[in-house]
Each structure stands twice: as C-alpha cells, then as structure tokens.
C-alpha cells in the first residue's frame, strides 16, 4: 500500500518507526481517516443529503427540505425549492346546491379581480311551477335592480318553432324557462365577461329547458349586456313562479 495512501493521503506507520511510536502513529492515521469520513459524509440530521463540493474529497451537506419541496439546481448546486403553482386555464371557484327556493345567489366575492371572465353552469333539477328564470348582478349581498339589463333569449322549440324574448333597459335578464310538469331538462352554461371589472358587462351562453307555453323542450341561446361599470361580486337567479331545486358551478378563466 502506498504511504501516504493513494486517494486520501492517510499517513501510515512505516517499518522504520519504533514500536513505541505505533500508538501515536495510529492516532495520526486513524484521525486522518475519521476526518476524511466526516468530510465525505457531512450529514447530521434525518433526511440530509450530501453532494460533491469544489474542495477535493469534501462533500457539502444539504439539509432535508420541507414537505412538498422538490430537489432542484440553483447557482450550479442542488437545493430544495417549493414548486411553482401550475397555471391552468380553467379553475373551479365554487359550487353549490339549492333546494325549494325562490332565488339563488352565488356566494359573495365569487367574482374577484383574480379573473376577468367566468364560466357559470346552472342546473335546475326540478321546479314547482312553470317558471321564467331571471337574473341580476349582485354586489355586497344586494341584487342590482337598476334598469341596466339588455338581453335577447332565442328559443328553438323541438317542434321547430322559434321565439325571441328581449329585455331592453329592464331590471333583470330573462335567462330561461322550465316547467313543473316536466322537470329535469334545464341546464345552462354561460360565460360571464367582466362581472367584477370596472367595465360594461356581457353574458353569453346556451342551454336547454322546457317551454311550458307550447309544452315542448327547447334549446336556447342567450346574450346579455349589463349597461354599467359597477363592479359585481355575485349573481342571482330568480324563479318567477314557485320554487327551484338544483346546483351551480363557477369556474374562472385564466387571464
């Protein structure tokens, strides 16, 4: 064996050393081994890692990261980092159910400055009468009943007849119909544009319902304009007759 050793330079006793010097010689040799092992394995705590440093035969301790952190590289050496939240194009904001109510309001602050535009789905599973569903913007727990609502609801009945219901400067949107005699078909998906922005608002969407007037299923297309720059944080639907039971889902479109 080379003396000192080839890789780590441990100094061993030689044949010329006096026997009485051996304890001191082994002290030197083994202390060298001990020091080097510690340099190579610097860990002190459960979960520690070690990586090679710029100093030969010496590793650097990397303390264990926190829950959720991932191993990455920064400035040329390994380190732990919290991964960035992935950006998605479509984020669920809230969902809810309602049962036997005359009106439904989304929770306060459903619309925030985080998103400019939203997708809102309303499913009415049952109604207690032949009802018209109207809608109003809402802020701080109060519906806006000003004459800001312009809309057109185009209805195509399965019997092929069509109708258009218009609102021009009204106090609410007319957004759909359902019948107590034929529950189940009502489902609407609307895009709410800029409800919380200080800008005029639009709602566009499609859906299906039941037209009690002619007792037929009907598809509908809705376009609405909120003629105000007031910032709203919620929206309400109101049943003109009887009560409604169902659910809603709100999603934010990534800006």
């Amino acid at each position, binding site marked *: 064996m080379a003396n000192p050793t080839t890789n780590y330079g441990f100094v061993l006793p030689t044949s010329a050393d006096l026997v009485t010097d051996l304890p001191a010689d082994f002290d030197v040799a083994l202390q060298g081994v001990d020091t080097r092992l510690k340099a190579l394995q610097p860990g002190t705590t459960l979960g520690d890692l070690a990586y090679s440093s710029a100093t030969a035969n010496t590793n650097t301790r990397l303390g264990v990261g926190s829950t959720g952190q991932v191993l990455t590289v920064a400035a040329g050496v390994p380190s732990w980092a919290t991964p960035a939240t992935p950006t998605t194009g479509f984020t669920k904001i809230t969902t809810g159910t309602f049962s036997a*109510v005359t009106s*439904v309001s989304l*929770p306060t602050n459903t619309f925030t400055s985080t998103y400019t535009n939203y997708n809102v789905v309303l499913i009415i599973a049952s109604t207690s009468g032949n009802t018209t569903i*109207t809608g109003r913007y809402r802020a701080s727990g109060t519906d806006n009943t000003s004459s800001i609502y312009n809309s057109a609801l185009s209805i195509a009945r399965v019997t092929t007849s069509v109708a258009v219901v218009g609102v021009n400067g009204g106090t609410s949107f007319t957004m759909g119909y359902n019948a107590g005699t034929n529950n189940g078909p009502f489902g609407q998906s609307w895009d709410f544009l800029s409800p919380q922005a200080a800008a005029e608002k639009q709602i566009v969407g499609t859906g299906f319902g039941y037209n009690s007037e002619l007792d037929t299923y009907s598809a509908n297309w809705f376009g609405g304009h909120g003629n105000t720059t007031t910032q709203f944080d919620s929206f309400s639907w*109101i049943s*003109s007759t009887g009560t409604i039971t169902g659910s809603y889902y709100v999603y934010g479109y990534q800006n």
Partner: protein
Amino acid sequence: MNNKLFIQDGETKREFTELEYAQWELDQITNKAVADANAKAKADKAALLVKLGITDDEAKLLLS
C-alpha cells in the same frame, strides 16, 4: 304575506328580507304587465287574422 319565500344566499338558505319581499312584489307586477302585453299582442294578431280570413301560416307565406 302568506307564503314565505326563501333564497339560497351562498351557503345559507334563509327567508327573504323585507326589501327582497318588496322587490319580489315589484317583479310580479312587472311580470304580469309583460305577460298581459304579450297576451294582448297575441289576441290582436289572432283577431286580425280572423278579420283577414287567413291562417297564421298563410300570413307568413304572404309576407315571405
């Protein structure tokens, strides 16, 4: 009011407030006015068709 009305206000189901009842009454008046106007327009149209002695489909053909 005899019949209580309820709102699903976010996560809370509660009875209408006095203001909401008042707005509801206003909405009912508006809805009735719109329904009456639509019914009158429908009746006027039907009466006109009778006077002309033609059906709705025939009127559409004449106007097409």
